[in-house]
């Protein structure tokens, strides 16, 4: 009786949201889907901002709405980052932040000061929202949603207007929040790297319907995944740090079937980490050569599938129990004679450490 069980049915002229969802009790659920597929509408339903007949929503065993109950939005313990920042124009930044803080009912679990620091908005506190840049507004909106110490966080493309550098600062903070506070997050994003980094669970919407829903790792290696991730197709691996090479600032992470070297940024031996390997970074070789590619694993071809482009294919390779995707040209597959069952070397040019 934990997690989030939802069934929404909302009819609009030209659009119909019709979803049944069962999301895990913790972690980040990424909501993916093309423009106009109903992501925002779904978040609004969860927040209680849209009222649809015959809908049901149970969060952590509490009934928020069903045929007889209706918890009004202001009594739902959520935080909501709207797609447009929607700050209160009559309040300055600090008062926008305080607005929610003053009204929270539960114990304050999130330090507003820390959020302010991490989002880099300390110097803006006295300003009116009208005097902020687009990215600044968005950061304030994130801090404001956190100010109520929500028990469920709904974020509608919160990082869309931010530069890479900022994203890199904010993402780990969000990760920590949901890890430490045990606060599930539903996160709409168009950026596969954000999703890969943050999400544990993936829900794909299309024309108001759920077309895929499952654990992130499982979903990503599905060839028929309805989201075309394109350049960002890849896999997510969980592993543990086995060794730190201080001289070269590298860390060895053991995964099932081998180990990979990743950049070290203060890891400790034994720590559990998540790695992301993009299909485009994986190449296959018949013999190990002397190249700058440091990660070389022994693997076996599992399956070959079409890719977006006819000149390319996705090859799934098993390394122990780990499955990796490799993107190759058809010609390379032919010239190396790659076929299911074949043993070969897997070269990984680059491994991203996610968490």
């Amino acid at each position, binding site marked *: 009786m934990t997690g989030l069980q939802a069934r929404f049915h909302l009819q609009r002229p030209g659009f119909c949201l019709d979803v049944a969802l069962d999301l895990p009790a913790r972690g980040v659920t990424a909501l993916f889907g093309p423009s106009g597929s109903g992501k925002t509408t779904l978040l609004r339903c969860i*927040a*209680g*901002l849209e009222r649809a007949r015959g809908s049901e929503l149970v969060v952590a065993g509490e009934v928020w709405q069903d045929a007889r109950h209706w918890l*009004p*939005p*202001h*009594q739902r313990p*959520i*935080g*909501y980052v*709207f797609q447009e920042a*929607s*700050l*209160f*124009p*009559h*309040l300055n930044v600090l008062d926008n932040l305080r*607005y*929610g803080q003053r*009204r*929270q*009912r539960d114990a304050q679990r999130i330090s507003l000061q820390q959020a302010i620091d991490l989002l880099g908005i300390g110097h803006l506190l006295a*300003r*009116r*929202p*009208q*005097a902020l840049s687009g990215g600044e507004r968005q950061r304030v909106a994130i801090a*404001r*949603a956190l*100010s*109520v110490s929500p028990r469920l966080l709904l974020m509608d493309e919160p990082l869309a207007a931010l530069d890479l550098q900022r994203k890199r600062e904010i993402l780990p903070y969000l990760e920590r929040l949901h890890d430490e506070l045990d606060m599930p997050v539903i996160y709409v994003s168009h950026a596969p790297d954000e999703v890969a980094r943050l999400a544990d669970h993936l829900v794909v919407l299309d024309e108001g319907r759920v077309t895929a829903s499952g654990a992130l790792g499982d979903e990503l290696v599905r060839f028929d995944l309805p989201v075309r991730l394109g350049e960002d197709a890849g896999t997510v691996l969980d592993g543990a740090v086995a060794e730190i090479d201080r001289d070269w600032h590298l860390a060895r992470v053991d995964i099932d079937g081998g180990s990979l070297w990743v950049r070290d940024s203060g890891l400790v031996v034994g720590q559990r980490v998540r790695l992301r390997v993009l299909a485009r970074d994986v190449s296959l070789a018949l013999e190990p050569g002397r190249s700058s590619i440091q990660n070389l694993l022994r693997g076996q071809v599992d399956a070959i599938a079409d890719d977006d482009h006819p000149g390319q294919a996705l090859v799934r390779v098993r390394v122990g129990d780990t499955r990796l995707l490799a993107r190759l040209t058809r010609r390379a597959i032919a010239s190396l004679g790659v076929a299911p069952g074949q043993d070969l070397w897997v070269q990984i040019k680059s491994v991203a450490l996610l968490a």
Partner: protein
Amino acid sequence: MLMASDWQALWLTAQLAAIVTALLLVIGTPIAWWLSRTRSLWKGPVAAVVTLPLVLPPSVLGFYLLLAMGPEGPLGQLTDALGMAPLSFSFEGLVVASLFYSLPFMVQPLLAAFESVGRRPLEVAATLRASPLDAFFSVVVPLAAPGFLTACVLTFAHTVGEFGVVLMLGGNLPGETRVASVQIYDHVEALDYASAHRLALVLLIFCFAVLLVLHAVRLRQRRADSSQESAS
């Protein structure tokens, strides 16, 4: 410069206008809010009815109110049943009459202001745990501030200038119902133009000052906003 009775009349006017504005703020706000949110079919008729007191000549309105407050009228019977003194020819009666007469000036500007606030700020407030009532005061009221200002300015000024109703209903009793507008009218009727000019001038200066302060408040608020430019 002014005679004692003039000062008395001015003081009465200020009291009347202030009380009426304050009461109408309390009465008009929920009406305007309801009108701005409802999808009921009653919306149009109610909005029209609320405006109707305006179209009657004030002294005629005063006449009907007098009938209503008289011993046979519904209001008169009500006050009687409650053991209160009749409302006619009393300051309380003027207040009640002015409430009727100035209601449109409060409701209409508020209605327009509420309609322009839109739904989004309320949704945001709800996600930040504000109950509807809380959100109304913490979000809608500040966002509709120019409308509130307009409403109060019009109500106040109109109550000051109102005179037909007062004359009919108040009976021109010094210290009780003889407000400045009636007093000026008396001066003019008595062809005592000098007194009329003086009292009118003082009244104008007084109201000018009040209005200037109100506008200054609005102006300063706008400045603060727009010195940091538009957008949102």
